């Protein structure tokens, strides 16, 4: 495949902070998004994904500032999600510097939004985000509000419907694996990539470079969104607490703990490892 597999750091954002949960729960502050973004850009990230994790929950969206700040220093594509509810929201965030928008909650509430958005802004601008959670009977349902409220939309059929509506890309978050570093849900990812012909980005579960190699070799994903693996690595050497006292769960940041269940890896190390194993990624 001539187009390179994309390595996409995902930055969950609450207010002014980068936060990191597990299974999309918990809002532990790890730092300021701008500094992570810059570091990842310099390391060779292919795209950045900003998700306002509390936007739907609080009924707001507030990423304009951080998006504009990032776009000034970072010259790779930026996808922005969280609380995108209307065509106006989309155009504001694009105008602020985003290249693509990711929509989840509002798409489930009103699938027509995907359709009208893709007509107005072009399919390739509209990314449909799916938060998948396993049900007791083994099926997967799509959730909204940062993995909080279930819908009756079964994941694979919803993915197909989103493609029909005009979404240009799907980002699939496997919530049961998210933040745990336990590896990917290869089965579900494969089912989704097999059922659509638009690019699929997988998110949730990256625990090691090997996990990512396995995912790239076993599935047709076009990109992999990674959070914990990169963020916990970054803060090993960049743990700044000065500005944070104003907001957020900063207990972890103020301590010197490192989670034992997350390996750490830099983008550069990951890409070398993938290249050594014949996975086509972009070298800087």
């Amino acid at each position, binding site marked *: 495949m*001539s187009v390179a597999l994309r390595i996409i750091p995902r930055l969950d954002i609450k207010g002014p902070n980068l936060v990191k949960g597990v299974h999309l729960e918990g809002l532990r502050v790890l730092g300021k998004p701008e500094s992570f973004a810059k570091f990842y850009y310099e390391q060779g990230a292919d795209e950045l994904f900003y998700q306002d994790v509390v936007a739907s929950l609080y009924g707001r969206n507030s990423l304009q500032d951080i998006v504009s700040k990032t776009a000034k220093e970072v010259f*790779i*594509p930026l996808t922005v999600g969280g609380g995108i509810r209307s065509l106006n929201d989309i155009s504001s965030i694009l105008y602020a510097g985003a290249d693509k928008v990711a929509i989840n909650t509002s798409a489930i509430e009103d699938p027509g939004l995907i359709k009208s958005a893709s007509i107005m802004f072009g399919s390739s601008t509209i990314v449909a985000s799916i938060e998948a959670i396993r049900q007791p009977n083994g099926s997967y349902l799509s959730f909204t509000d940062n993995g909080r409220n279930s819908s009756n939309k079964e994941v694979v059929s919803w993915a197909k419907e989103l493609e029909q509506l005009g979404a240009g890309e799907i980002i699939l978050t496997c919530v049961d694996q998210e933040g745990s570093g336990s590896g990917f849900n290869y089965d579900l990812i494969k089912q989704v990539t097999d059922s659509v012909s638009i690019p699929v980005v997988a998110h949730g579960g990256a625990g090691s470079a090997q996990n990512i190699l396995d995912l790239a070799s076993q599935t047709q994903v076009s990109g992999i969104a990674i959070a914990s693996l990169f963020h916990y690595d970054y803060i090993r050497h960049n743990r700044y607490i000065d500005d944070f006292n104003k907001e957020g769960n900063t207990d972890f940041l103020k301590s010197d703990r490192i989670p034992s269940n997350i390996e750490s890896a830099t983008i550069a190390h990951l890409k070398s490892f993938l290249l050594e194993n014949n996975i086509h990624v972009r070298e800087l």
Partner: protein
Amino acid sequence: MKKPYKIAIIDYQMSNIFSITNALDALGFESKVTSDRSEILSCDGAILPGVGSFPEAMKHIKNFNLDDSIKDFINTGKPFMGICLGLQLLFDGSEEIENSCGLGVISGNVKRISAKNKNMRVPHVGWNHASKNKLLYNEKNIGPLCSLNDKDYFYFVHSYCVEPDNDTDIYTTTEYGGNEFCSSILKENIFACQFHPEKSGENGLRILNEMFN
């Protein structure tokens, strides 16, 4: 120190203007986001950006009375750059959504990327190469990609691609899913690319620099 060189970023309310401004800023260029004809014509260079669908873009361009301004600027011979949809709009027409006419500056049409097999996803999203048209540019350091080579990566995100009638207009091609498509054109003072230089990291910035220097 800002270079005394002003670039018009043609605004028809359909693109990520901010990123382009930022990129030019970082390179020390002065830029002006505008849809005003005289302002555009007074600049030393111009960029036609674009994100979205072809028919919608043409509607906006007509609404802002920009079609003439664009053609007139091109005719001044000053550097003119089209990006992504801005490349496609220069052509005769596109089949995206409904058949519509473009600006007709470059001869040819815009067609949907054909997916040869299941592995080939549309839209084409991600980092890919842009190989120079060997017939015309072999070993010649010409054009905005003169300092870059076939191994360099640029960021693409599109479902449609241009098919120029004249091979001489083709500056670079890109391979995707077994097909080669035209990823940029170079004709006199016009350079237009399917990929996004403002989103292609350092390589992209180099292209912008070369273009307007």
